[in-house]
């Protein structure tokens, strides 16, 4: 059993089973939750992309929103100009963003922490405004990215949101499965070696710069996929859809999930999607003023962020693992 769970087929089975559970769930809940499910899937990919970069390769990005914008625009352009089917749009988004990421990553590999943070922050601020400079990008109102109605074969009561959710969930599952595999491959080991000690890794014959650039490229590809998914869930791309707050939200999600492990990635995504609802519930229960209502979501997220980073800096999953290991060690003693 142990062997099976850790093996390639074990992971494959797990992801397929999980997909089946999601499919069952999507038939039981109302439209709103199904839509939120699609947003969760989008955040899962975006957060995983950042965790890969930060947790596994030790680089910081404050500009994931900009990378997502590249993916979103690539998907929309390929849909509008070539009439590509939606899955091909996703592939184009991944490839285009990965290419952009490899260029950025080459520059990024030369930069240490705060310099990289500054550059990616400037990217997040600067990139979306390009859309207003080129007519083909549709300006402030942006471009449509409409994947159309679900296939008729799925039945008449198969809603558009369920279709969105299916596509997003399958895309997220494939992305996560692929990511799990690549992290267990040679590349994953290289990244971890570089992360824990650059000098030692270099002595062991690893080309540190190349390894970092590759991590940035892979992370960008995933961010591009998340961007295309985001574009799909709002069926448009526009500069205002990729604000600085999106980059910060993804970073927040990554920390809430724990940056050292991918297994908690759902936690961050769920919190990001659920916070507005929770804030809503609180402020409506206490019938408070408009001032409280508007500031509550920001307050909740910030407070949670600070608490997590202070109390469980490596995320809840890692914390549980440490606790269990400690208990086990005690038992052995």
């Amino acid at each position: 059993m142990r062997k099976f769970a850790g093996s390639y087929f074990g992971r494959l089975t797990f992801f397929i089973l999980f997909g089946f559970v999601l499919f069952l769930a999507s038939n039981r809940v109302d439209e709103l939750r199904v839509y939120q499910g699609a947003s969760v899937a989008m955040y899962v990919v975006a957060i995983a992309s950042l965790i890969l970069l930060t947790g596994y390769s030790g680089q910081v990005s404050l500009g994931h929103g900009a990378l997502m914008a590249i993916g979103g625009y690539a998907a929309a352009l390929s849909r509008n100009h070539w009439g590509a089917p939606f899955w091909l749009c996703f592939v184009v988004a991944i490839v285009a963003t990965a290419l952009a990421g490899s260029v950025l990553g080459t520059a990024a590999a030369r930069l240490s922490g705060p310099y990289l943070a500054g550059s990616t922050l400037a990217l997040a601020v600067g990139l979306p405004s390009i859309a207003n400079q080129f007519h083909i990008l549709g300006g402030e109102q942006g471009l449509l990215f409409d994947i159309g109605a679900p296939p008729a074969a799925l039945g008449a009561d198969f809603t558009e949101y369920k279709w969105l959710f299916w596509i997003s969930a399958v895309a997220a599952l494939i992305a996560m499965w692929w990511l799990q595999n690549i992290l267990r491959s040679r590349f994953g080991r290289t990244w971890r070696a570089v992360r824990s000690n650059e000098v030692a890794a270099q002595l062991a014959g690893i080309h540190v710069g190349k390894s970092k650039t590759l991590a940035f490229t892979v992370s960008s590809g995933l961010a591009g996929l998340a961007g295309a998914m985001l574009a799909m869930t709002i069926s448009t791309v526009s500069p205002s859809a990729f604000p600085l707050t999106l980059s910060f939200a993804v970073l927040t999600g990554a920390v809430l999930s724990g940056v050292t492990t991918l297994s908690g990635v759902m936690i961050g995504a769920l919190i990001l999607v659920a916070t507005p609802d929770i804030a809503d519930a609180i402020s409506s229960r206490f019938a408070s003023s408009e001032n409280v209502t508007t500031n509550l979501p920001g307050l909740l997220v910030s407070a949670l962020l600070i608490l997590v980073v202070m109390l469980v800096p490596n995320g809840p999953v890692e914390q549980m693992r440490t606790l269990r290991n400690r208990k086990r060690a005690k038992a052995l003693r």
Partner: protein
Amino acid sequence: MIGINRRRLLVASAVLATGGLVVSTVPAQAFSPHSEVGVTNSAIKLGVTIPLTGAASPGYNKVPSAMKAYFDYVNANGGVNGRKITLVVKDDQYVPTLAVTQTNDLILKDKVFALLAPLGTANVKAVATRVNPGRRGVPVLFVNTGYSGFAVKKTYPTTFTMLPSYIVEAKIMAQYITETYPGKKIGLLYQDDDFGQDALAGFKQAGLSLAVKVPYASGSQGVAGVPATWIQKLSAASPDVVILFGVSSATAAALGTAAVMKYAPKWILGSVGGDATTIKASGVPAGVLYGATGASFLPATTDTTDEYIKLFQSINAKYNNNAVFDNNVLVGMNTAFVTVQAIAAAGQNLTRKGLIAAIEKNGAKFASAGLAPLNYSTTSHVGYNGYWFGTYSPTGDLKPNGGVYTVYTTDSGSGAIVKSTYKRPAMPADGLPTQP
């Protein structure tokens, strides 16, 4: 290593399962007793998404409470056909992603009857395609953007616009400038996106030649030093008349910087950024506004001889904590007023279809504070289509030139610009809807 993997999987599945449970145990909302969503025999629920926080919120964040104030006034006087109106307000921070999720909430969770006055072209477009109120049959009343495309009935079957489009405004403004300042050199400051492009198209359409055009990136008005570069570029070209066709924070930044650089051409302000209260609240002294030209389609906010303004001011005092009565409050109240007219016209058996039909059938005759006509019909979802021009007084309030509202109207295409003969319907008694 394998053990860790297995535990990872276990933890992951536990988390996933919890997530799934959370998602699946939430019960579906109960259906409303009336046959139409969001309507009962005693209540109507409407929803609005608008920026309440964030950089785009100043000014606009006053609109929802103004709408609420008018609805409260109507509710206190018996409601519409016996139904009281509630308004659910959601903050979209001017981000399309939030606009879509908040609108989803409004339609699927709050189950509102209709959406009211959403703001921002990118937001409304994203909502129209993704949430698709058109297919769901949910009315989207009186969109708060000057993008002319939303009036196209074929693409947005349930959407009605309200503000005159940017192209309409630019065309009328061009004619006004050509007539008032013949042979003068004209300069323009505009936002370098669709908003500005529409304005440029309108000026071109009306044959206005611009000696100097200064574009600015949306949001860059907040960067230290940037407004100073606009003013020195404008002053270097020394135009006699300068049009400020931007959002209010940019208009305010331009006016404030011009004042400290002692640059004072004849200013003409576009209506989007022309609300005196918002400009003054952004730090511009009233004296700087004095003598500038502005445009509006509603009566001047200080015109207490106007029956609508008088009514709205008294409602503002009683139901809106006596907020500063500016153009945002006026637009909010007027939007709510027209909404109530529409709901009353749709009759006792209120349905979404019926509401849309009522606006198409009677919308052009609705009472409203607007001095330009509403153009609703079975073939047109266009709201107001005209402007009057005025001058800012020493206290910084916009007053019509010569004390009379001279309104010009036109369309978003190549139509002519004509002096309007529209006569506004008299306000119903106490500003309450006439009950059938």
